[in-house]
């Protein structure tokens, strides 16, 4: 109680939830992570409050988990692994601090969602780089702190993108700003001389932003981030390129990427495309049945000084390229309209969240690889599904080129009826055991949630040793989200 009083003193009683009053969605999510109820949920509104909480946590030996998005969560990274953990819910921190059209950057607090950011950027002739149909309450900041892919590989130069600088309260309680935001000067002084917090590296000889990305909140709590934006296109042309075999679309995608054509570029299977386009489970099934197995979604932006000319030549080049592969740039395929797809992927998901529409629940498995290896992984996943009697037709697949095509994110969405315990167990088995097979094939679980951590960290002891050294610097008492990753 003494400790709880400390929290209430910092936050105000109305911003702290304790014990049995803690809603269930903080205790468990769509992953297979065991449910553990947090001791408290606290909802700060300012960086100073966050810092006070972290200092309090160090004093009282309380573990903390930061969380910025609304439910349902999918990864297990925001579920406590130990009793007595307090969840720091940052969804109240909703300021869009700055939008800078000239430097194409915005600065946002963790609670800002894509739905909130899009209109704010639109006023300044900007658009965000957006993940694949995120849920409506998904935090923009956390998406990119966790290195989630976004749909336009041309803007994804490397893993850190589109994140630049962050302000963080480390697990030690110290406040820091990464990249060029570290100083000299306050933010206001920096802005006065044209600085825009667009350099995420540094300061100096350490990349502090990079040490926070993918950390699942184990190093500290980020209180704002500067994020790259893109010019708002004046013209948009979207196409669907379909084929029975994934390999051909991969080859086509490689060529598009080499020529640096287009904007949105990703590949989904028929179920995923259908699920984002339809609300009703039957309609999803129907469209999925009509669609070819694989769909590459590709768009061309008209932006800049000559938008129409930009579209025209890219369209011509894209058509020629597609023809050379025996492919077509379609506006309609299997009842799906390319323009409808464009509308969907330009904003967050409407309710219900698209992953939940088909069966009610969804478990994701995701990792990095290279595009040429994705057919092999797809084949393996179908085998694993078959071995577990999971209906392969209920599995969504999303392939997103990243780092301008140097690697790619591949994601399998196992859609299940949450009441079907048997099927849930089968998917759990695939999640925990199947990932071993995938890891042996070269799947890189760069974001190792839950059971994947075993394989991600099991092969190189030095990685674990090094990460623990880093952890000991930024979170010396180990209070930040213990039990995650290799900590």
């Amino acid at each position: 109680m003494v400790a709880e009083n400390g929290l209430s003193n910092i936050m105000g009683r109305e911003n702290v939830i304790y014990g049995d009053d803690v809603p269930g969605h903080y205790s468990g999510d769509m992953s297979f992570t065991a449910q553990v109820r947090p001791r408290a949920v606290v909802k700060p509104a300012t960086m100073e409050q966050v810092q006070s909480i972290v200092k309090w946590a160090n004093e009282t030996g309380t573990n903390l988990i930061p969380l910025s998005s609304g439910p349902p969560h999918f990864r297990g990274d925001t579920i406590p692994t130990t009793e007595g953990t307090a969840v720091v819910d940052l969804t109240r921190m909703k300021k869009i601090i700055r939008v800078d059209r000239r430097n194409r950057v915005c600065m946002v607090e963790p609670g800002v969602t894509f739905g909130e950011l899009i209109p704010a950027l639109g006023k300044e002739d900007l658009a965000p780089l957006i993940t694949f149909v995120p849920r409506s309450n998904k935090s923009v900041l956390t998406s990119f702190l966790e290195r989630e892919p976004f749909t336009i590989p041309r803007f994804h130069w490397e893993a850190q993108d589109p994140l630049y600088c962050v302000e963080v309260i480390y697990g030690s309680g110290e406040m820091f700003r990464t990249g060029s935001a570290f100083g000299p000067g306050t933010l206001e002084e920096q802005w006065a001389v044209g600085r825009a917090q667009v350099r995420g590296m540094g300061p100096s000889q350490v990349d502090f932003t990079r040490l926070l990305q993918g950390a699942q909140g184990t190093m500290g709590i980020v209180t704002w981030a500067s994020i790259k934006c893109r010019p708002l296109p004046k013209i948009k042309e979207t196409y669907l390129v379909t084929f029975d075999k994934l390999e051909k679309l991969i080859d086509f995608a490689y060529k598009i990427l080499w020529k640096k054509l287009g904007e949105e570029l990703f590949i989904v299977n028929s179920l995923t495309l259908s699920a984002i386009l339809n609300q009703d489970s039957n309609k999803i099934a129907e469209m999925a049945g009509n669609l070819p197995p694989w769909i590459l979604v590709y768009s061309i932006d008209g932006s800049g000084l000559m938008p129409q000319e930009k579209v025209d030549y890219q369209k011509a080049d894209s058509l020629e390229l597609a023809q050379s592969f025996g492919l077509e740039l379609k506006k309609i395929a299997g009842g799906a309209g390319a323009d409808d797809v464009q509308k969907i992927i330009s904003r967050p998901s409407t309710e219900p969240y698209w992953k939940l529409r088909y069966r009610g629940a969804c478990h994701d498995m995701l990792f990095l690889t290279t595009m040429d290896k994705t057919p092999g992984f797809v084949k393996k996943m179908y085998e694993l599904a078959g071995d577990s009697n999971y209906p392969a037709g209920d599995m969504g697949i999303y392939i997103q080129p990243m780092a301008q095509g140097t690697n790619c994110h591949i994601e399998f969405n196992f859609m299940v009826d949450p009441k079907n315990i048997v099927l849930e167990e089968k998917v759990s088995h695939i999640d925990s055991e199947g990932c071993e097979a995938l890891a042996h094939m070269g799947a890189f679980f760069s974001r190792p949630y839950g059971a994947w951590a075993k394989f991600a960290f099991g092969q190189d002891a030095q990685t674990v040793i090094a990460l623990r050294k880093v952890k000991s610097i930024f979170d010396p008492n180990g209070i930040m989200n213990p039990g995650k990753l290799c900590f």
Partner: protein
Amino acid sequence: MTLSREAYKALEEVVGPENISEEPAILDGYCFIWANEVHFGDKFSARPPAVVMPGNTKEVQGIVKVCNRFNIKYRAHASGWEVPAISAKEPFLPVDLRRMNRILEIDKNNKFAVVEPYVSVQFLLTETIKQGLRPASVGCGPSASIVASSTSHFGCGTSNVSTDYGGRTPLGVEWVLPDGNILRVGSLGTDSGWFSGDGPGPSLRGVMRGLSGPNGGLGIITRTAVKLTPWYGPASIKARGKPNLYDYDVPENLLVYQLIFQSREHMTDFLMSIVEEGIAHGLQRCGVAVSAMIVSESNDEFWDMVKDSPPEMAEMYKFAASFLVDAASPGELKYREQLVEKLLDKYEVMSFPMDDKMRGALFYNLVTGQGTQRIFRVSGSFLSAVGAQEAWDTMGHISRRCAEEIWAKYEAEGKIALAGESPWGAALGDWGSHVESVCVYDQLDPESVQATRDIIAEVDELLPKWSLGMGSFEGCLSPAEAAQKKAEPYCLDFMSYEKKIKKLFDPNLVSESTWYVTPDE
């Protein structure tokens, strides 16, 4: 300083007798480099006790373990072409990575290459352009090491507008840690391949380097995968004609522009548009004098070209830049050419006339960085006291204030060459700009050397006060943390974290750290 016989024998057993030397004449080649006189007061810094040359990762590891055992400070270098590669106040064992010179893999589809440390920019470029790809170029020219610039030092270059800053191109990395253990960064650590440098979990690339690398102060990188970007030019670029003013054929699908602007702001506005349109392959901000240098055989010829230019011409050409537009198709070429014309019209920008020789030389310079090295020819040496990266407008503030409030008085006294408002700059991906303000000095002239020291000190002092940044490439080119200490009162404390990293990763403190950090006692 000499090595104990036991230590020498241990090192000899690792690399073989022909790859270790204690010969003083050889050792002096490992403590001599440009800018030594600025930092250490003499052309020679501390002579090392020996030099070793490993041929593979196992030998590198062996050397590092011996150094830990015998408490010998060591530092690796590849081309060795920077004072942080070669020099220190106190002796250390240089680890010359010249024998590790292979390209191990070029993955054409996924656009990356895996290289050993001695592979230079030009070496890799020569092979990758055959496959329609290219690595990031480096400002100091084509002889620079890919591994060193991308993982351990800095990494800006003329190509960065399309390749991104070199420091953002590493993928999987094989790293012999200061204690001799091997860390495989990214996907390499899970045997997945070289394609990603980040993860699992937080990225250890963040320990490996930040804006700059640790300059050898945190172990030895033995292999790196680097991201490549598309190259639409020919499979081979070869000069023709006679040395040293070779001619180059500019491919038809590459367009060279050299432009003059009315003001700093005018230049910034235009170049930012070029970057936002995403059409440039190479871009650099540099004075027209640099172009003249590139096409002049010698300083004498260069002086002959410019000496009678009226002063107002220097003022007129103060703000200049060159860039290279590429195109993957005829349609793209047509669009981009028209777009540039429209932009030139919109911003009322003047083109600087180029003959074929200059056009070719600029083309080659923008692709490879070759030619900018001629800055050494001007006075014998140079140093950039400022190397900053952030938004474009900030770079304008930096170059203006540095020129007006620091450089001007030294130029007026003739202590450094007239560089005027002519710093060197590059565009970094689609996010920012890099600028350098250079001291073109004569290493044989004590006053010129002292002026350079004074300029560096002033920059270190003033840049943080102006809230514009930290001097000496944010500490990368500052021995013994001099720039960092000057910036400390104005910045959040980042040094204590760096020192903790150093202490944890190099417990015996044998990875020589003059150009990195040293933990406090």
